[in-house]
Structure formats: structure tokens, C-alpha cells
């Protein structure tokens, strides 16, 4: 059953390459980025139970790292990728150490991540290196060396690569030793500590990994839109979308965020083709989230796969 699901997902992922439509490729790219970001959130929020409301902090940091390095210092955006990952990972690690040492869990952790994202947004809006409120414009110059592609299908391939990386990481968590520590801390932190798991380190490492992957998503964003400003880089809506994708698909499962991204984009695109009013689609996400929490806590993945640890 699970194998069938992965074959179906892989086939679906390859289909847009067969089409010459830039519209289809763009849609596929956006869905893949959503899935990758949802998977990154899932590593901390699903496997680690670290419900973050402010994951966009990492996205924005990655986006700005990439944009600043190439516009101010003339580095190639290919260098933006490791730089963003290091920054996102480093900030995730430090944020984890600070908050978990202070004993913040659950709702408090969710709120503190929201506050971090907001603090970064205000900072980006008021300091010089980020261009303040007017943001940073990256010069259009499509070439592989510039990591800018005229054909959206290449952008889609980059997004798929990030998705594959994040999904590989999630898969390692699901079967590996570190993931077992992480899930043990999620289920019962005191018991895990008693067994010798260093909970603060494990959780911080998960947040670092998740932050690094999320930051890479920020780089992909900048390279496709060639523009970043504080409200886009640190929008609450994007934090919520990452959480939605993972929760709707099934938090703490490897396939969940992929299914979640498909579901969320299916809702968004159908709604948009039916009603033009902005707000209708996100309102439906909220309703779906409530329904999922109330009636299907395991998310869509529960339908398709058997629970791993039932």
C-alpha cells in the first residue's frame, strides 16, 4: 500500500515535465515548494511535536541571506544555498537551545516562535542591509550559473530536489536512531530523559534541521520571484500554510506533507476558479484544519497508509 502511494506520488511529480505549459509548471513548482516547506515544518512540528507558529522566520532568513549575498556582495546564488542553510540551521539551533533550556513547551513554544518571526520582520523592515520596507530586487539574468531559469520546469526541478531532500530527512527520522529519540521526547519528555535522551539537544537539533531546510525554501522563492520584502519574507500566512500542509496531510508521517500540499493546492485552485473574492480559499483551509483536528487527527495519510506505530 505504502509502496503504491510512493509510486503514484513520483509519477504525479514527473507529469508536469511532459507538459510544455508554463502555467502547469508554475503550479507544480508552487505545490512542490509548499510540500517541501510543509515537510521541513513536519520535521520539527510533526516528528518532534514542536508546534511552531513562526516557521516563516527561517524562510525569511534564507531568502534575505541569498538576496543580500548576490546583490550586495556579488556572490553566485549557488552560494546562497549553503549560506541560507547554515543561517537557518544556526538560528534554529540557538532558538531551540534558548527556548528549550527555559523549559518552553507546547503553546508557549508556538507563541515564542511567532514572536521571533515578528521580531525578524520588524528588523528587516528597519535596517539598511535588507533594503528596509522597499525590499531587495534581484536582477533578472536567466542562466544556470545564476540559478535563474527562463523555463519554469527548471524551477520546478529545483523545488522537487528540495522536496526530495526534506522527504529523505523525514524518512531518516522515521526509521533512524535520532528520529526515535526525537519521537520519544515528543511522546514523553520526562520518560525519555530518564532513559538518557538529551532532550534539549535532540529538540534543538530537530529545529536546526527543520530551519535549514525551510531557509532553502526561502532561496528558491527569491530565485523564482527575484524580489523579497519584509511582509513576504516573514508573513504569518506562510507560517500557517506550512503548519496546515503538515497537519492536513498528517503530521509526523513521511508522506503527510506531500498529500497535504496536494490537498491545500487543490482546494486553493478549485476555489479560485469558482470565486474571485480573496480570502475564500484560506478560509476553507481553516475549516479543513478544524475538521482534521476534530475528526481525523492523523491527517489524510491515515487514509492511505497504515500508521507506523499504532
Amino acid at each position, binding site marked *: 500500500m505504502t509502496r503504491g502511494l510512493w509510486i503514484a506520488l513520483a509519477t504525479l511529480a514527473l507529469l508536469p515535465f511532459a507538459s510544455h505549459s508554463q502555467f502547469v509548471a508554475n503550479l507544480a513548482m508552487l505545490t512542490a515548494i509548499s510540500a517541501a516547506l510543509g515537510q521541513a515544518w513536519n520535521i520539527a512540528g510533526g516528528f518532534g511535536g514542536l508546534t511552531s507558529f513562526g516557521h516563516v522566520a527561517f524562510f525569511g532568513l534564507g531568502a534575505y541571506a541569498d538576496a543580500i549575498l548576490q546583490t550586495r556582495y556579488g556572490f553566485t546564488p549557488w552560494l546562497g544555498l549553503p549560506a541560507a542553510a547554515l543561517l537557518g540551521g544556526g538560528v534554529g539551533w540557538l532558538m531551540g537551545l534558548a*527556548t528549550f533550556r527555559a*523549559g518552553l513547551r507546547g503553546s508557549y513554544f508556538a507563541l515564542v516562535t511567532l*514572536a521571533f518571526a515578528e*521580531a525578524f520582520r*520588524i528588523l528587516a523592515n*528597519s535596517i539598511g542591509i535588507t533594503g528596509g*520596507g522597499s525590499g531587495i530586487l534581484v536582477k533578472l539574468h536567466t542562466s544556470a550559473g545564476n540559478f535563474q531559469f527562463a523555463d519554469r520546469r527548471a524551477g520546478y526541478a529545483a523545488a522537487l530536489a528540495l522536496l526530495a531532500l526534506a522527504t529523505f530527512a523525514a524518512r531518516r527520522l522515521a526509521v533512524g536512531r535520532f528520529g526515535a529519540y526525537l519521537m520519544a521526547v515528543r511522546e514523553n519528555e520526562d520518560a525519555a530523559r530518564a532513559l538518557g535522551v538529551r532532550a534539549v539537544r535532540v529538540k534543538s537539533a530537530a529545529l536546526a534541521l527543520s530551519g535549514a531546510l525551510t531557509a532553502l525554501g526561502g532561496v528558491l522563492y527569491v530565485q523564482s520571484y527575484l524580489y523579497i520584502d519584509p511582509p513576504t519574507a516573514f508573513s504569518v500566512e506562510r507560517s500557517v500554510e506550512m503548519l496546515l500542509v503538515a497537519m492536513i496531510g498528517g503530521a509526523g508521517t513521511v508522506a503527510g506533507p506531500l498529500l497535504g500540499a496536494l490537498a491545500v493546492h487543490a482546494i486553493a485552485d478549485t476555489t479560485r476558479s469558482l470565486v474571485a473574492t480573496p480570502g475564500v480559499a*484560506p478560509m476553507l483551509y481553516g475549516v479543513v484544519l*478544524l475538521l482534521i483536528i476534530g475528526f481525523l487527527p492523523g491527517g489524510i495519510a491515515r487514509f492511505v497508509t497504515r500508521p507506523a506505530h499504532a
Partner: protein
Amino acid sequence: MALLMPALVGGLLTGGVYALVALGLTLIYGVLHIVNFAHGSLLMMAMFGAWLLAAKFGLDPLVALPLLAAIMFAVGWALYRFVIGRVAHGDDRAILLATLGVAVVLDNLALVLFTGDTRTIETPYALQMIQAGPLLIPLAKLIAFACALLLAGALWAFLALTDTGRAIRAVAREPEGAALVGIRPDRIFALAYGIGIACLGAAACLLLPSFYVSPQVGGVFVLVAFTVVVLGGMGSFPGAVVGGLLVGITENLGGLYLGEDLGPICVPLLFIAVLLVRPTGLFGSVR
């Protein structure tokens, strides 16, 4: 100095309304032990309610206050009874996510109903100033401050002196014990949630003469409200009042010394600092 005093007084006055917003939040936390992330969005809804009553029916917000508080009580009661209480099954993370889901629905519902425009109302007292020594105090803010503290006092008296108030406090302490003496905790939960949201109805009427409303306003207030509550101590009544005033002042001093762009960073930084250094807040007890 010439700038400091107006900033302090202005912050204090706004802080009074923050205190009222935070009282609702801290009451909900104290009784139900849930973090109501929908608080900002519900305040935004209430502000649109006050705006509708003023713009379409010509009702002054201060006159509309009891009506809107009653409406918001009903909204809160029903929301808990039919959505949050139903969906969450008592699991902390599920409750938090359910309140987030409610916030997402409300924010976007407002966007659908009212579009993203910011709206304000005009009241005869909006621009009036009162001379107090060297200070000019905006009348609307002074009225809001006085009403907010008055309502906070009334709420305190209700919880301290009435039977229903005692029942709410009993459930907050010991839901099972309260059930044994004939109190029905599920009813008290919906009641307390309703009262917490009614505070937002009142706060919305006090805010609107000097603030604007837009669908995004909930996001602005949610962090402020949580900062107040965490600073004062989650679940603490005097904490919410003192915290409200302190956050109001902090915000204004931040704007004064750090400028309009960087100033707003004070609230999230204060929030992070309190949680990292003293998570129990000023008046909170150790859990």
C-alpha cells in the same frame, strides 16, 4: 522630557484597553487552561461589529458597548460550545491548533466580508483634547482608559462576589471537585469563554474611536495580548492589568526612542525575554 511625558501617558491610556483585552485572555487561560490563539481575531471581529454599528446605524461605540459585549458573549459561548470544545477533545495541542483554525477562518471571513481596507469611524470626541497641566490628553483615550479599568473592576467583583463567579473560580481550581458539589464544568467552561470574549466586545468599542480596523488587525493584537498576559503571569487578574499598562508604555517608549519602524520590535522582544527569563511573569505562580 517634553516628549517623554506624553509618550508615558499615551502608553498608559492605551495600556488600559490592552489590560481589558488581556483580562479576557487570562480568564480563559485561568479557567479552561487553554491558550486562545483566536483572541486577536475575535477582537478584530468585535471591532468590525462596532464599526458596523457606528457606520450603518449611527450608534456611538460607547452606547453600543453593552450590546456588543452581549453579542460577543454569545459568539464566544457558541464558539466554545460548538467548535473549540467539540473539536479539541481536551488535548492541549489540538486546542491550540483549533483556536488557530478559528483565527484563520475569522481573518479570512473578514477579508471576504469587508475587503482588506482599513476603516475608521468619526466620533464627536475623537479629536478633543483635555489640558492637564502641560499635557494634552486625547479625550477618546481617556474615556477608553477609564471605562476599561471600570469594567476590569466590575469583572473582578463579579468573580469575587457572585455565586456564578465563585463557581467559575471553583472550576478553575478543581473541575472535578466542583462537579462533585453540583457545578457543571462544561457549562462553566463555555460561560468563562463567553465572558472572556465579551471583554473583547467592550474593548473593541473603546478602541475604535482612536484606532482603525482591518482584517489584519487581529494579528497585531494577538501578540500584544499574549505579551500582556505572559508579562503579568498567565491566569493572573492583577497581572493582566499591570501587564497591560506596562506593555502600553513599553510600546510608546519604543516608538519614541527607536523610531516608527524599529519601535514595534519592543513588544515581541519583551514577550521573548519574559518567556525565556521569567516564564511565570510578574504575578504568576509556579506551575
